[in-house]
């Protein structure tokens, strides 16, 4: 039995555990699924050697609601509320990603105003998600103030979104072929004023956490994910960028008019928890820049594809007065937007990573197979590799830095 407790660095420790050299008997500890630090219903089956983790086996599926099977029974527009609840911290982004995938299947192009509104929605959702992620990360590390500050800003975002589409979150704002309704009057002014206040709060968050000795000690050089590992495990989004993979779908494969906006993409070098925090903090600032650009250049025009006769509902005054529009409305509501045969796979840069929708359609208004590629599902699969060797008290830090959401992981 080893009596030397100075195990050295984590690589040595992890290697020791693989060889079977332990200081004593291991203890099996079950963490979750109801646990404040697991960010939802995630269960970790841990084997501990004293305080150090030797094995970590995550068990997911406690929030599996059967979305993919439900999608085979719903029309495309009826599925939009289910997409809200995937990554429920950024529902607008999921809405936009889903309708973009279906519009790709239909081969629809959107007018510039609709694209600008969608970009604005996505960026608001990104800001909201990162704020909660970093606020809760601070709370996990012990800083309650960060949580309160972030939630105050999120309440302002909620007020804006409530004015836009009626719900604080779970918005269901997009439809195939456009949005539900146009922007309210004066809303863009409120958004512009909001960005100034949000910038101040992000600076406050920066001052509280970035050079905080306790936070630095807890996150610096913890759980380093190398570039090769990140690629091998299918990492995308901010986690991948923190590990040095310079990929951002908004810049590299622009969708929805993102090529017209001016923004930078932060890139990390080390790939530890601190890098993941820094990347998200800077992304929040860049997001504010994009929101300001959207407000400045919001074009006039239609917020839906006017030529998409079998896909987007006609306006109510026409429906109630004209026969053809009435029939169109009826068919759309009962049978759904008619899609051609074929399959598409569309991914968008969501706050948590690349959310992908694979749709195989046999024609008609209901998909034959809908697969949702949740980025949190892929991000969580690396846990058995990076957690062993660290102490149990590092686990909330590692989980918080990965910033996952179980709704997206389990669907």
């Amino acid at each position: 039995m080893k009596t030397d407790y100075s195990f050295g660095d984590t690589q040595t420790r992890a290697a020791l555990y693989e060889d079977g050299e332990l200081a004593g008997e291991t203890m099996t500890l079950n963490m979750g699924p109801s646990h404040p630090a697991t960010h939802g219903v995630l269960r970790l089956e841990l084997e501990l050697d004293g305080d150090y983790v030797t094995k970590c086996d995550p068990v997911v599926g406690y929030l599996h609601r059967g979305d993919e099977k439900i999608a085979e029974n719903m029309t495309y527009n009826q599925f939009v509320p289910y997409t809200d609840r995937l990554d429920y911290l950024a529902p607008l982004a999921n809405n936009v990603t889903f309708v973009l995938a279906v519009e790709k299947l239909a081969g629809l192009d959107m007018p510039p105003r609709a694209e600008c509104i969608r970009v604005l929605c996505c960026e608001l959702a990104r800001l909201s998600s990162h704020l909660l992620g970093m606020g809760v990360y601070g709370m996990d590390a012990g800083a309650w103030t960060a949580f309160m500050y972030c939630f105050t800003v999120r309440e302002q975002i909620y007020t804006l979104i409530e004015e836009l589409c009626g719900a604080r979150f779970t918005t269901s704002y997009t439809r195939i072929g456009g949005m539900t309704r146009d922007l309210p009057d004066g809303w863009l002014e409120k958004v512009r004023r909001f960005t100034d206040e949000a910038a101040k709060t992000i600076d406050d968050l920066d001052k509280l956490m970035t050079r905080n000795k306790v936070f630095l000690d807890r996150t610096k050089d913890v759980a380093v994910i190398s570039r090769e590992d990140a690629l091998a495990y299918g990492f995308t989004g901010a986690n991948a960028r923190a590990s040095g993979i310079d990929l951002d779908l908004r810049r590299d494969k622009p969708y929805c008019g993102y090529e017209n906006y001016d923004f930078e993409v932060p890139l990390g070098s080390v790939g530890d928890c601190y890098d993941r925090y820094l990347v998200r903090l800077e992304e929040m600032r860049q997001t504010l820049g994009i929101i300001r650009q959207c407000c400045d250049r919001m074009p006039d025009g239609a917020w839906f594809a006017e030529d998409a006769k079998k896909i987007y509902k006609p306006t109510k005054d026409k429906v109630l007065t004209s026969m053809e529009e009435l029939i169109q409305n009826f068919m759309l509501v009962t049978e759904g937007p008619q899609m051609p045969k074929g399959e598409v796979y569309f991914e968008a840069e969501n706050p948590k990573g690349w959310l992908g929708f694979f749709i195989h359609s046999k024609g008609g208004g209901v998909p034959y197979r809908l697969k949702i590629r949740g980025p949190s599902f892929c991000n969580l699969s690396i846990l058995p590799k990076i957690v062993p060797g660290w102490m149990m008290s590092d686990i909330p830090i590692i989980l918080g830095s990965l910033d996952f959401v179980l709704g997206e992981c389990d669907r």
Partner: protein
Amino acid sequence: MVPAQQNYAYNSKIEGDIVVSRLDAVINWIRKHSVWPMPMGLACCAIELMAVAASRFDISRFGMEVMRFSPRQADCMIVSGTVTYKMAPIVRRIYDQMAEPKWVVAMGACASTGGMYRSYAVLQGVDRIVPVDVYVSGCPPRPEALLDGLMKLQDKIGTERAMTNLLNADMHSAPKADKPAATETAQA
């Protein structure tokens, strides 16, 4: 001579330092103003629960900011989010671990009836496994709605027969095996 109108105010010269009241009223008053919730935060409703605990819709005004994740120390389990069949035994187990007196609030559509998820994996309402005191509807319910639900829970606590329950040691006697239970068997 008896005055026409009785004065019921507390007068320390007459009553000294003694307040006379019904024990039930005092116990219920204490209990309802310090309900410590156990957040069974499962899905999106958990975010609204966090918003209720944050500074705009302060749950601390009601004495409930102490979110106790340990069921032993909690009074009220707020089931917020979709309960899947995989999660159901855990919800039941945590409910069993809570100490008496305990209440359950089913927050949101998914916890009340399964919500919009009528699928193979979702329990159609948490009241199939735990007794629910207050149902709060909404998807997710606004924080004000949750606070209203908690206030209704406070009213319900105010009507409890605390003394009878305390003196009655066997207060959770199971229905006899030959009598059919009151709750209906659930179908998939």
